[in-house]
């Protein structure tokens, strides 16, 4: 009787030990399977295609072309053009997003009563689809009956409607305004989180020392906020470089390729020129550019230290 009980007990213990040992793997497995299916295969496939000629209008000939796709892409006029556009766009929109984010976050951190309304609506642009945001702005800046033209016209600031999206510079500005509107709120929330981490004592000490608002901002807020600002800048830079949905609905890369950002160029290469090999080669170049930023991002976040 007692022997059986011991045997049963150890069996039970063994079962539970096995369970404990495999439990972590079992709990990660389902998620991992989905992610592996949609990561490893796509990457291998994409890298393979980039070495072959894959032009959809020539479906039966896929010769190996080595690095030709990469060479064609890099030496093309469109690549240089979209790289310059993406550079300008990224610098302007990240600057805009950061200034917007800082101003909104600092206002949200005050006790001004009107700020409560801002608090309620701040997440709205972030929450809606980018496609929808792009369309809203497309009709706002419309040259025939856009509300922006309507407002400027009513105020007497312009004598005739401005075709915003037909002018290379104004089209870029419109795109950037829409981008700041869509991405700024997230930056504001992040920066606000950072502001709330700064202990009140710092401000009180500064007040006693008679520091003015600007000095406090320069010598207390900004340095203490730096780590968070760094993360937000890197994140926003990635977002800006990869902008696609907004361009797709707002400008379609035009006029005269002035808003053809690098993701849009990759899209056009694949879906307009039907050159899969070159399109994917370009995407890989984009991936490498973002990879560098991602490494910076991970460094800034340092999450891997916390789980090991």
């Amino acid at each position, binding site marked *: 009787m007692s022997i059986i009980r011991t045997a049963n007990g150890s069996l039970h213990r063994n079962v539970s030990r096995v369970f*404990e040992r495999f*439990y*972590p*793997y079992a*709990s*990660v497995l389902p998620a*991992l399977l*989905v*992610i592996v299916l*949609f*990561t490893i295969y*796509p*990457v291998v*496939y*994409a890298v393979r295609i980039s070495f072959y000629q894959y032009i959809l209008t020539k479906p039966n000939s896929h010769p190996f072309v080595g690095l030709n796709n990469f060479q064609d892409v890099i030496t093309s006029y469109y690549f240089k053009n979209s790289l310059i556009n993406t550079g300008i766009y990224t610098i302007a929109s990240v600057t805009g997003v950061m200034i917007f984010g800082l*101003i909104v976050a600092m*206002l949200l951190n005050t006790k*001004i009563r*009107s700020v409560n309304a*801002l*608090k309620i609506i701040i*997440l*709205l*642009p972030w*929450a*809606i*689809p*980018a*496609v929808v*945001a792009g*369309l*809203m*702005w*497309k*009709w*706002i800046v419309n040259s*025939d*009956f856009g*509300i922006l033209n*309507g407002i400027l*016209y*009513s105020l007497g600031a312009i004598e005739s409607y401005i075709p915003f999206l037909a002018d290379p510079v104004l089209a870029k500005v419109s795109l950037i305004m829409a981008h700041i*509107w869509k991405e700024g709120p997230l930056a504001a*929330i992040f920066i*606000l989180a*950072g502001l*709330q981490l700064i202990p009140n004592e710092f401000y009180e000490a500064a007040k006693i020392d008679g520091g003015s608002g600007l000095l406090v901002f320069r010598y207390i807020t900004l340095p203490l906020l730096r780590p*968070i600002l760094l993360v937000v800048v890197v994140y926003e830079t990635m977002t800006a470089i*990869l902008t696609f949905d907004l361009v*797709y*609905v707002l400008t379609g890369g035009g006029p005269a390729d002035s808003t053809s950002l690098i*993701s849009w160029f*990759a*899209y056009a290469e*694949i879906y307009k020129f039907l050159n899969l090999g070159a399109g*994917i080669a370009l*995407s890989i170049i984009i991936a490498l550019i*973002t990879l560098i930023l991602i490494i910076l991002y991970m460094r800034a976040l340092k*999450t891997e230290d916390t*789980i090991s």
Partner: protein
Amino acid sequence: MRIKSRALIKSIFLNLLVAILIVYIAGPFIWVISASFQGENELLKKPPSFIPKSPTTDNYRYVFTGQVPTSYEVKGQLRSRISQEARLIAPALKNSFIIAIFVLLINLLFATPAAYAFARLRWKFKVGIYNFILGSRLMPAMAIAIPYYVIIQSLKLMNTHLSLILVHSALTIPFSIWFLTLYILNIPRDMEEAGLVDGCNYFQVLQQIVIPMILPGLVAASAFAFMTSYNEFLFARFLTTSITSQTGPVIISSISGNPDVSYSLISVCITLGMIPPVILAITMRKWLTEGLSSTITFR
């Protein structure tokens, strides 16, 4: 006296700044809603009416019932501005909703146990797999759109809800795992240890102790997964070919691609399409803000 007037100027300046920001943020929403209640004739005036002078629900009636608004019949030429496609918005939003709900459920089901294993348990390859999962999300969507197309085609899932449920799950699970791992790392450990000493196994600890403690995090993670799926455009655009699975963003962008379409109808589609995320963003403001904040301040 000087100090007082300076404080007053400062207060006026700050309130003005807040007002400008509110107009910038809310303006586009108010305008698109206002436009959706205007007839085409009123909308095309120079300058347009900011507030509809004769508000009409005709545009909505057309989208839901197919009854052509009277304002379009005044001038024969405006008839062409009616796009049949606008009527697809209701089924498209239904598709978006079904897909997003399933993505949300899969996220909760798959990401919660995984996050617990990453945050609390000791096992081989943990850090490597964690980095792989997080890194998987960092590929530019454009680079993997074609391979995704190939995978979905070979699984014979083209133009189905399931294809987008799978793809959106793959896109959102890494974030959910990361987010929930951080969340679990930031709750006290004592209760779990007491549970383990009392003879609970890991699964029971997760179910009875951890999950109740991370409920706010789970709510936020669900909302993020839902919104990401509901808003996603690129993959939805490539993997769907008809209204049996096309989602809101796909239909909205396709309607607006028609150069002749009426802006009133687009406004209706946009207004309807943003109802779910706007409701989420307003009602769950606190959780979303806290959730977003925690991703950047938790260590």
